[in-house]
């Protein structure tokens, strides 16, 4: 056919080939082509093509369509045994390649398994509630005119009551309130317990089976108490708890029911439930305006829709309520939204959560990274399979001669890939088991949130992942082999164009190495930054300081007196809070006519010297006798700046007065700025006032000891003597700082692990390619050697191509990582150690070294082979 002639659209021809019976195909093709030629002359190319397409579609008729060939499927079935057998032999024959493939797929899949297990755990949260699909929580979006929007899991009591009264299309509403807790007293024994208030609809919405008691009435009357099985056992041992009374503070509660323990995968956890009717009687106005529309901080509202109920219509009626109530508010807006029970565990951004939740975006990122790693391993498989196709193409040729169709060859190679993926799954399940415990121990919270236990459903999902991976990895080589031309293969194997897609493969190696480099440099920089964060000079000393949290049981004075006796304790002070951990206290302060919110810490006279705060001017606070008037305050530089006191001169600022609450406090000292919050936030104005810390707050000890466990035991013994109920919470300041930045440590660990995997996989892929490339060029190497090339020259010749690829990868990855940190990550921290280029270069060298070892070892082996051995075989 002449090339210049117009041709009918290719895809339409292919469609025809696909559906048409072979017996009449040629004839039909010819006819349509003849008509096409005619139409080209009569109506132009475009119309002719259109008509051709329409004709192809019109000819889709019963008599033209090919019948599905059951025989083909049958052959597949019969041949399955043979495929498995040949696959097995191939796996055993090429141990290096199979090893690379299986190990690569296994370690990459282990991350995938972890992500699947994670997501599956979060998805099965609250599955034990029979009405899970119909339960919604009312959440609040609060927008002040001049502030960032705030989203809360809580809502106002008023909102809950309004919804209960006036919204139709809801089956049940329950109101709950957070913050119940204290020491439960039964006779002589005392036990700290915490829980929530809930009204009588609670048990009809949630499925928490009761062991004793009536679910309909258990939370009806005031002062009713529902215990979980564990808390009942703690309080009453093996005795019957029902009907007993438990005392919190001065109030007696009656146990009306005992419920089974809450499963781990529940979004809410509590030790006890107290009837909501009690709230009205006990302390309704504890945070001001119990029934106020804007008191959105303490209450939870859950609703149950009727079967086939519509959340949208309910949302619409709730919106009407908010609109009506918002009219009375100035400068702010409060909107209520419905959140389904299934979404709760994925949304960690709500304030006042009832339990722990995971950040949904973090899961997506983790999933995405796992995908990158799995794709990387799949690509290794594809690449290596095609690279060694020279050896297997003859087998395929003979199969085809014996009557195998394209489909059969495809089937064979896919079966082989799936078998390898399943073998890899066995290995990766083992890795997953190891990974699981170390993953959970990374962050203490995770242990309470997740089980990651294997269930039949999970195993099924794992298998699905393995099969998908097998298909993904196996399809490209399968298509490659299926298209092989028999005659070419059997006549002259070297004519096979193995290296047709060589540029694509080089590009993929570059991509693999780019990701490896990004991961590894991110880890190194992240680790250094994290180390920098926890050892950052905060502006005061945290060395050898132990903070003990006062839990309300012992009086601070007593404890301090006892602790002073210990020889190891050199200094002792008290404060409301431990700074630099992310907790913030604040209050309003007025200077002349200017008023502003500032940070606050309440301290005693020993606090500032103990922490070695630097005074720019003035002196420390004096101790005040109990009941005496407070008159002094210590401030930081930022406060002088904020109110522009004495032109920011610390010396002249002394003696100025601040109005705090209703008291006039004189500035007696100015300390150098230090990091009161975490390093993510800027340093803000701060005041420090004297207070006698007794039941709540912290005791700070400066300890000088060689034997910390013994000292700890002694401190603990003192605590135990004074408070038998609560366990002591004592921690090194430096450990507390480490905990405050734990999320970053988790990120570094995750990235470190991913970097390890990415580098492993990329290295194995590279190794495979180098082995193959040197093997195919062995003859060339031998001839060069005979002609006088030196070993170093040969190694250089063989490896320069690969090294060029690595350098390209580095040129992409290193600047990308640098900008990522410089522009995205580190801008979130107001204070951080500088990022060093040496960190990037270190990452590059690690990867390069690994790659060079691999390239070098293989090329050197090739260069050292005796040319006589190779050339003799010709």
């Amino acid at each position: 056919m002449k090339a210049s002639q117009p041709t009918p659209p290719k895809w339409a021809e292919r469609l025809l080939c696909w559906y048409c019976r072979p017996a009449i195909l040629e004839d039909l093709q010819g006819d349509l082509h003849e008509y096409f030629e005619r139409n080209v002359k009569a109506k132009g190319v475009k119309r002719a093509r259109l008509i051709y397409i329409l004709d192809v579609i019109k000819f889709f008729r019963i008599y033209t369509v090919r019948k599905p060939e059951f025989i083909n499927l049958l052959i597949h079935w019969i041949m399955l045994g043979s495929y498995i057998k040949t696959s097995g032999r191939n796996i055993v024959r090429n141990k290096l390649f199979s090893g690379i493939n299986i190990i690569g797929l296994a370690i990459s899949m282990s991350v995938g398994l972890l992500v699947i297990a994670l997501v599956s755990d979060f998805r099965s949260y609250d599955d034990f509630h029979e009405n899970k699909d119909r339960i919604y929580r009312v959440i609040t979006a609060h927008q002040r005119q001049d502030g960032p929007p705030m989203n809360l899991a809580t809502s106002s009591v008023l909102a809950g009551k309004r919804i209960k009264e006036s919204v139709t299309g809801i089956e049940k509403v329950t109101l709950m309130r957070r913050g119940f807790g204290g020491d439960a007293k039964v006779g002589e024994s005392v036990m700290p317990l915490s829980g929530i208030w809930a009204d009588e609809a609670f048990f009809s919405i949630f499925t928490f089976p009761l062991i004793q008691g009536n679910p309909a009435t258990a939370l009806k009357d005031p002062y009713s108490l529902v215990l979980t099985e564990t808390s009942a056992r703690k309080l009453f041992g093996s005795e019957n708890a029902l009907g007993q009374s438990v005392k919190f503070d001065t109030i007696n509660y009656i146990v009306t029911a005992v419920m089974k323990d809450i499963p781990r995968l529940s979004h809410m956890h509590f030790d006890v439930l107290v009837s909501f009717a009690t709230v009205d009687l006990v302390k309704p106005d504890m945070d001001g305006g119990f029934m106020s529309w804007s008191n959105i901080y303490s209450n939870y509202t859950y609703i149950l829709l009727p079967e086939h109920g519509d959340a949208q219509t309910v949302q619409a009626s709730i919106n009407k309520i908010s609109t009506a109530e918002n009219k009375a508010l100035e400068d702010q807006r409060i909107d209520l939204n419905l959140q389904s029970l299934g979404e709760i565990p994925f949304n960690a951004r709500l304030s006042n959560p009832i339990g722990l939740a995971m950040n949904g975006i973090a899961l997506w990122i983790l999933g995405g990274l796992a995908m990158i790693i799995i794709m990387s391993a799949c690509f290794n498989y594809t690449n290596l399979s095609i690279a060694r196709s020279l050896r297997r193409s003859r087998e395929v040729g003979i199969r085809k001669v014996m009557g195998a169709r394209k489909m059969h060859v495809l089937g064979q190679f896919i079966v082989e890939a799936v078998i390898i993926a399943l073998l890899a799954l066995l290995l990766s399940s083992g890795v997953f088991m190891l990974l699981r415990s170390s993953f959970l121990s990374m962050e203490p919270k995770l242990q309470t949130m997740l089980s990651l236990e294997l269930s039949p459903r999970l195993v099924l999902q794992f298998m699905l992942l393995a099969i998908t991976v097998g298909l993904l990895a196996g399809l490209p080589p399968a298509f490659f082999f299926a298209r092989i031309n028999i005659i070419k293969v059997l006549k002259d194997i070297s004519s096979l164009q193995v290296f047709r897609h060589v540029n694509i493969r080089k590009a993929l190696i570059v991509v693999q190495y780019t990701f490896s480099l990004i991961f590894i440099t991110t880890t190194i920089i992240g680790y250094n930054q994290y180390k920098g964060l926890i050892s950052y000079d905060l502006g005061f000393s945290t060395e050898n300081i132990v903070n003990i949290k006062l839990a309300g049981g012992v009086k601070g004075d007593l404890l301090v007196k006892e602790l002073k006796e210990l020889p190891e304790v050199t200094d002792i002070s008290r404060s409301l809070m431990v700074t630099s951990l992310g907790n913030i206290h604040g209050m309003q302060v007025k200077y002349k006519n200017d008023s502003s919110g500032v940070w606050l810490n309440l301290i005693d006279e020993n606090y500032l010297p103990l922490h070695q705060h630097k005074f720019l001017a003035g002196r420390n606070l004096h101790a005040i006798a109990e009941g005496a008037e407070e008159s002094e305050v210590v401030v930081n530089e930022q406060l002088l700046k904020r109110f522009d006191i004495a032109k920011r001169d610390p010396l002249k600022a002394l003696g100025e007065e601040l109005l705090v609450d209703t008291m006039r406090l004189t500035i007696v000292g100015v300390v150098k700025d230090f990091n009161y919050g975490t390093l993510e936030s800027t340093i803000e104005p701060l005041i420090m006032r004297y207070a006698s810390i007794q039941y709540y707050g912290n005791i700070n000890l400066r300890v000088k000891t060689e034997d910390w466990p013994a000292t700890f035991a002694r401190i603990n013994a003192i605590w135990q003597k004074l408070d038998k109920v609560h366990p002591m919470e004592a921690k090194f300041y430096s450990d507390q700082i480490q905990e405050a930045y734990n999320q970053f440590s988790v990120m570094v660990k995750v990235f470190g692990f991913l970097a390890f995997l990415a580098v492993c996989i990329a290295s194995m892929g590279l190794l495979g390619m180098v082995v193959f490339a040197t093997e195919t060029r062995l003859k060339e190497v031998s001839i060069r050697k005979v002609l006088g090339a030196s070993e170093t020259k040969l190694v250089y010749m063989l490896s320069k191509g690969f090294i060029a690829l690595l350098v390209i990868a580095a040129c992409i990855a290193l600047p990308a990582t640098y900008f990522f940190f410089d522009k995205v990550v580190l801008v979130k921290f107001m204070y951080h150690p500088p990022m060093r280029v040496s960190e990037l270069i270190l990452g590059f060298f690690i990867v390069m070294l690994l790659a060079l070892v691999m390239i070098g070892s293989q090329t050197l082996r090739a260069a050292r082979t005796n040319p006589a051995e190779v050339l003799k075989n010709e």
Partner: protein
Amino acid sequence: MKGTNLGEFEEIVLLTIAALVNDAYSVAICDELEKNTGRSVKLGVVHAVLNRLEEKGLVKSKLGEATSTRGGKRKRFYSVTSSGKAALLKAREVREQLWNRIPDFILKGAS
């Protein structure tokens, strides 16, 4: 197999095949029909009829030689089988009989 009775269009197609002798392939049959009957004939219809006639055993087909036209695809040439011939003759006989029974004056005047 469906009834061996010839439909009207089937009969015309069969006659055309016979008339084209050695050159009866789908496109040619189409053209010939269009020329003789004056009505437009769709390839799809002819194709379906040819397929049906072959199923009934009234025509047989064989592939010709490949040529440079038709995208290099061979033509399928049809020829009338003996049972095809018999069916045609029978149809003609039926018509002749009917024609013979019509008195001359009935059709007089029609041109």
